[in-house]
Every structure is written in C-alpha cells, then in structure tokens.
C-alpha cells in the first residue's frame, strides 16, 4: 500500500483530497490529510464580515465536513518535513511516512514582522481583516466607530488576495454612506506599490473609482514601523501618516513549519515549478495554493485551477510519465466596488486583466474589468459555489483551468510580468 500525504486542509488541501480520492485506486493508495484546525473558513467572507454584510456563520464550517470518505484526517500540529527520509513529524511525536507529499499549508499574516504593529492597540485601533478574529473584532469596532481618519494599508507584497484591501476601501465608502456618516470619515489607501492600480488596462478602466469614492491614495509607502501611541505609520523615507483607525494587511508569510523543514524562501514559501507544481525541493514533493512561491496571485481561484492540473500531474508522476507543464497562472477574481456592484478580472502569468465578457465570449453574462450589478451577484453566488462545488473538487462548468483568450479585448500589450 502506498501513502499520499496532504499537509493542510484549507481550500487547496481539501480540494486535492477530493480530487485524488476519486482518481487514485483505494486498493493501492492510502490518503491522509493533516491540519491542526477544526474550522474551515470561507476566507473571501472576511471582507464582508466587518461591514455586517455576512454573519459569522456564513464564513465557518467544520473542517471534517469536507474531507471525503476514504481519506484519513489527522488533527495535529505539524512539526516538520524530513524530506531525506520521506516522513513528516507531528507535534505529538507521530511519524507519517509518505510516497508522495502535497504541501498546502497556505499563507498567514505575520504582524510581528513590522515593528510596533502588535501591542495594546492591536485589534483596538489597528486591525487586520485576513483572520477570522481580526475580521470579527473589526466588525465590532465599526459598529460603534464615530469616524475620523481611516487608513487602509498594505505592508508589503506578496499578499493573499491582492485586491482585498482595495475592496475594503470601496466597501467602507459604501458602508459609511449608508450609515449617513461618510462626511465624518476620511479614507486613505496606502500602498508600497506605485499606485492603487499598477496594470495599464486596469488603471485606465478603474482609476475613476478612487476619485468617485473620494479615496486618497498614498503610493510608494514602505512601512518601517507603527507608532501605536501617536497613531501614525512611518515609512523608510520617514514619511508619516496619521490614523484614527488603521486597517492593515500585515506581511504575509508561509507556515513556520516550512522554515523548520529547512526549505522555503525568506517568506517561507515553497520553491515550486510554476507550470507543473512539482517543488524543486524533491521530486516526490508537490505544492499548491498560497504555500508556493509561484509568481501568481495568492487566491482561491488560482488554487482551484492548480488543483485540476496538479491532480493530472500526480497521476502522471505515479505512472512514471512526464509532467504536464500546463499551469499558466490563471486567476479569476470578483472585486467588490460597493453599492451592490462588482468587477470581474480574469488573467494569467502573461495576460493582464482586460475588458470583455465571461465565461461565454461576447455573451457574458459577466463583464470583465467593468462595474456591474451582475458581477456582484456572481460574487455572492460564489459562496454557495465554494462550499458546494469548489472545495469538493467539482468542476465549475464553462470555466477552464487555463485562461481562455476568447471574449477578451486583447491587443498587442506589453508583458508586465
């Protein structure tokens, strides 16, 4: 009997467990998945929770509900991977042998990386919304907040769901208008990039949103420390920005277990081939989703497309065939813009987001790089798709793993990647 071991039962790991149990014969392959958590979070919902648009029950379910029969779930902390001996050591001293390993341990916030970010002010005047706790505490804060300077801030790239902070700023504008207190709130978006939008087509199509919503942008701001006492953030060029409420995306890092295992880059991401999803650590170790160092967005949709290709490549690896170099960095993301509207973007490693229609070329019903109510409905429907199809490894009709160029207004553009 051979052993396939998956580390992490989040979006990627759960999808792989579902895909592989259907693919690999039960008589030959044992499947085991390890995760210390008991709750599976619908992370896109962390954006809606602070504004009371979702309730806590919308974003969490029991982790074991989504692990298929025939897959062994171990709820224990992972100590490290011993790649030389093909084993994983758990905190309870158990040792798990594997023939094939899939790393799906994701990424997490690391506020401790920024001087002064943690402290008495954490989750009082300085919040993240990338964790369940952060998102829920921010909701409680916003329910009673009387207004002032709201600073929405990105510490450094890469981050999970790079558009989420922008969506947060848009939804905040909508939220305070609906509460009748927009005039009491000053919204500033602070980014280490050269602007809120960095791709030519998106800048051209979307820059009006910031002006329309009266959101100030401070670009090229690389945070050096948070001065919690005086409520300001300071960058390496000594520029200071004052806040009353700081909603920050801290540095994102891969799991510390990766560091303990002796591989990973300076942010604990696993070096992975960007087309096959095999790691460069060892042939029998694969990685998927936010845990990898791929130059793709860290997003659930990317993990979903990767899962289809990784399943095929695991099969090929077992059969001793050459791996398919197929993954193209495909991502497909809704971007909430407030007031019941949203954008949709569909792109890959080489193609920047452009205008067009999706998924049916020339028909839609969704519009690319354009604010519509239909896109917002798509985003809301996605929660159902996530819980009922996506993590269960069901193919989403009409949406292919690699990006489709049909239906997109593509001209000779500069490759920005």
């Amino acid at each position: 009997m051979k052993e396939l071991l998956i580390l992490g039962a989040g979006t990627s790991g759960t999808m792989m467990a579902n895909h592989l149990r259907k693919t690999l014969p039960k008589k030959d392959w044992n499947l085991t998945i390890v995760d210390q958590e008991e709750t599976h979070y619908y992370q896109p919902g962390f954006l809606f929770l602070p504004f009371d648009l979702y309730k806590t029950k919308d974003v969490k379910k029991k982790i074991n509900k989504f692990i298929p029969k025939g897959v062994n779930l171990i709820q224990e902390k992972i100590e490290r991977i011993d790649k030389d001996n093909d084993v994983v050591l758990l905190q309870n001293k158990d040792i798990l042998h594997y023939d094939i390993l899939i790393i799906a341990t994701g990424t997490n916030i690391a506020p401790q990386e920024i001087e002064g970010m943690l402290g008495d002010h954490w989750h009082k005047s300085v919040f993240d919304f990338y964790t369940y706790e952060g998102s829920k505490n921010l909701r409680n804060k916003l329910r009673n907040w009387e207004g002032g300077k709201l600073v929405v801030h990105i510490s450094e790239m890469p981050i999970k769901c790079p558009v989420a902070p922008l969506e947060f700023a848009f939804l905040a504008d909508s939220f305070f208008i609906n509460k009748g207190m927009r005039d009491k709130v000053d919204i500033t978006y602070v980014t280490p990039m050269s602007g809120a939008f960095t791709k030519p087509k998106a800048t051209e199509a979307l820059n009006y949103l910031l002006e329309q919503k009266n959101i100030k942008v401070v670009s090229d701001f690389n945070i050096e420390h948070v001065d919690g006492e005086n409520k300001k953030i300071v960058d390496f060029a000594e520029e200071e920005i004052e806040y009353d409420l700081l909603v920050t995306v801290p540095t994102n890092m891969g799991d510390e277990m990766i560091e303990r295992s002796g591989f990973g880059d300076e942010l604990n991401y696993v070096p992975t081939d960007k087309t096959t999803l095999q790691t460069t650590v060892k042939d029998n170790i694969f990685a998927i989703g936010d845990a990898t160092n791929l130059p793709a967005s860290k997003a659930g949709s990317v993990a979903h497309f990767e899962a289809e290709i990784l399943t095929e490549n695991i099969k090929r690896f077992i059969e001793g065939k050459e791996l398919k170099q197929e993954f193209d960095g495909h991502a497909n993301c809704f971007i909430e813009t407030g007031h019941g509207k949203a954008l949709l973007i569909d792109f890959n490693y080489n193609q920047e987001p452009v205008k067009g229609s999706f998924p049916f070329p020339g028909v839609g019903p969704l519009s690319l790089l354009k604010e519509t109510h239909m896109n917002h409905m798509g985003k809301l429907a996605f929660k159902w798709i996530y819980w009922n199809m996506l993590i269960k490894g069901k193919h989403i009709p009409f949406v292919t793993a690699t990006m489709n160029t049909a239906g997109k207004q593509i001209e000779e553009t500069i490759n920005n990647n």
Partner: protein
Amino acid sequence: MVVEKIYGELCVTCNEQGYLTDLNQWTKEVGSEIANEEGIDMTEKHWEVINYLQDECRKEAPLSIRKIGKSGVVSIKEFYQLFPKGPLKISSRIAGIPKPVSCI
C-alpha cells in the same frame, strides 16, 4: 503601448512608463542614461544593487524592499539613500526590469 527609445547608440523597447520590456536589451550604458534621467549619480554600490536585482529577475523571484534589505547587498536605509523616493521602482527602471506590479 510599446515605445522605442534611444540611449547612447542603442535603440531599446520600453513601456509607456519608461521601463525596458526586455532585459536582454540592457547594457550598462543604457542603465547609466536612465539613471541620468532619474537624477541618480551611479557609484559602484549602485551597480552592485542593479546586478542583484537583475539576477533575481532572471530567477523570476518577486522583489520587495524587505527582500533587498535581507539580501546582504544593501540595507533598507542604504537602499533609500542610493535611490531616494521610491527606491524599488527607480532601481528597477535603471536595471531594465519590470517595476513591481499587483494583479490589477
């Protein structure tokens, strides 16, 4: 939109923001001319940073201020002294590599 620009005796292809679209077209002379446009007086230390950025770019490693600070080539403070006001985007332009971008 792609723009052709002449630096010294070489014709290179840039995007509308003045970043080279192909690192293979880069020469030290091109780098020097772009540095002039940016108002940077290049020293050995500047070139050391430029070489590091190009090496990382060839490896397709994403660049950030933190990564450069941890590289051992230059500290973040020094990086700001060498290329004031947006060091990563200025040094990337001189190095002939794309400026760091997000997904939109």
